[in-house]
């Protein structure tokens, strides 16, 4: 009665083959990550030293370190976060806690998708036209960071909205029924319970912001400045632009040096991602209801 027919066996075989094929495809897709990171480590590691990290480039970028670019990237990221996190969190709170299901809300969602989908070079054109020229900031950390902020805004909004919506509706209703206003409910119950999810999104945004090149090329990044930025209206070097510059524009740069820069950049970005992922895993284990 319960013996496999030929048909059963054939479909079982089909299934095994399908599984193997899909597994192979997945492996083909993720193997390059490991290859890339491996290659960068092998070829870039010899360049890394305290001196490399903490001195400025010398001899037309063919020697020396990356200190001004590292500090520049920190400036860009911090200013971009200061601009985008408050706006992004507010937008997410609106969408999750207030927005009715209407045309405006659909338009906002569409705008967010598009903000994430517009090519980075178009963001660069916008940043140049709007911040550098129209608002007369000139090429500066401020203009570059604001461009980055607009571009990465969807990352904050989407992550925040998700963690807000993970807070069960029953908690809100319980607060409202005690006479709490919407805002009191958000501040006392909803936000405290989603803050870690928001943080995960912010860390992810740091990683995105640190790696972007096109949006800062014309808005504030420069190939070489001898001094560290003193304020948001200065131009600055940045890791990503530095890599682009020494890989394509500068001449006679030793290969080891370029790989070193690429290694540091990818290390920053992947470390941020790893923190974000670890945080998320930790949160999943932390059951609060």
């Amino acid at each position, binding site marked *: 009665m319960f013996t496999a027919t030929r048909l059963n066996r054939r479909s079982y075989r089909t299934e095994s083959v399908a599984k193997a094929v*899909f597994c192979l*495809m997945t492996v083909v*897709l993720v193997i390059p990550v490991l290859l890339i990171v491996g290659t960068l480590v092998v070829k870039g590691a010899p360049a890394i030293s305290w001196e490399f990290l903490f001195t400025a480039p010398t001899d037309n970028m063919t020697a020396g370190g990356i200190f001004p670019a590292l500090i520049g990237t920190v400036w860009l990221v911090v200013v971009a976060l200061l601009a985008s996190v408050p706006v992004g969190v507010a937008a997410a709170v609106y969408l999750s806690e207030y927005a009715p299901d209407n045309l405006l809300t659909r338009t906002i969602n569409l705008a967010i998708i598009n903000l994430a989908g517009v090519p980075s*070079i178009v963001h660069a054109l916008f940043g140049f036209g709007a911040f550098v020229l129209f608002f007369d900031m000139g090429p500066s950390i401020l203009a570059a960071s604001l461009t980055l902020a607009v571009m990465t805004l969807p990352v904050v909004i989407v992550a925040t909205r998700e963690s807000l919506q993970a807070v069960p509706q029953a908690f809100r209703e319980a607060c409202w029924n005690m006479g709490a206003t919407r805002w009191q409910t958000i501040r006392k119950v909803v936000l405290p319970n989603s803050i870690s999810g928001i943080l995960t999104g912010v860390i992810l945004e740091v990683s995105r912001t640190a790696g972007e090149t096109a949006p800062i*090329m014309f808005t504030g990044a420069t190939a070489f400045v001898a001094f560290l930025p003193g304020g948001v209206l200065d131009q600055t070097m940045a890791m990503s632009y530095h890599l682009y510059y020494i890989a394509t524009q500068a001449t006679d740069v030793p290969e080891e040096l370029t790989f070193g820069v690429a290694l540091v950049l990818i290390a920053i970005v992947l470390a941020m*991602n790893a923190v974000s992922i670890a945080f998320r895993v930790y949160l999943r284990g932390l059951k609060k209801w």
Partner: protein
Amino acid sequence: MAWYVDRVARVLVFAGGISAIVFIVGIFVFITKEGLDFVLGPLSLGEFFTSIAWRPTSNNPTYGALALIVGTASVTGFAMLLSVPLSLGAALFIAEFATGRTRETLKVLVEMLAAIPSVVWGFIGMSIMNPLIIRTFDVPVGLNVLNAGLILGLMAAPIMTTIAEDALKAVPDTYREAAEALGATRWEVIVKVVIPASRNGLLAAVLLGVGRGFGETMAVLMASGHAINLPTSPFDSVRALTATIAAELGDTVKGGAHWGSLFTLGILLFVVTFVINLTADIVVRGIRKK
């Protein structure tokens, strides 16, 4: 008191909410503003779409963008050829076959793939893929459609994999259980139940992948060879729309025709990605309605 705080908070978060609309409209307004003089003046649509002569700096400048459009299309097309089957396959494996730790590891690796900055991809194209392609295929130049297409394929894969996986996961387990209870194998369930039910989501995933590839700038700039050319084989160098803006904007005179022409390319990029995203959104909305 609390009531007034509530009102003020409502206004503030509403302002945050509409900021996304303000920015997307702002992007369109500002690039149009800078490109308008060119569109109304030197631009000839016929030349723009049919000529391959992009010579904005010559004494008698011409603005034929055909080679740039074809360049972008060929690289994106090549990338999709590689990336669509791999991404959908990976999404199926992660969503339907992989379990537990394997699944988590694969998802993390896909996220890492998405995290690698585009300038690093471009650098890999120049420093690793370029010599590799020259040696393997015995061609004079390794910065070409093949190189940029491979890189772009890998770059567009994570977004496709993630969204396709979400679409597959959105198919209720009750469908799967019902089919399995009738004696279908997992593979039959996937082909006959899961894929048809998530068709729209998979289509949206592919569209967003296309949008991602189409708009990529740094990697294409560095790995495609940046030569104005109508490619006849994957080993030809090409030049993309995005790369042209990135490479030339720094050398233009503000407000000049060359300047305006680059913003016009920007308008084209904006409109095309907008249409792609809008279509993907409508396609996804289609499933929710059902």
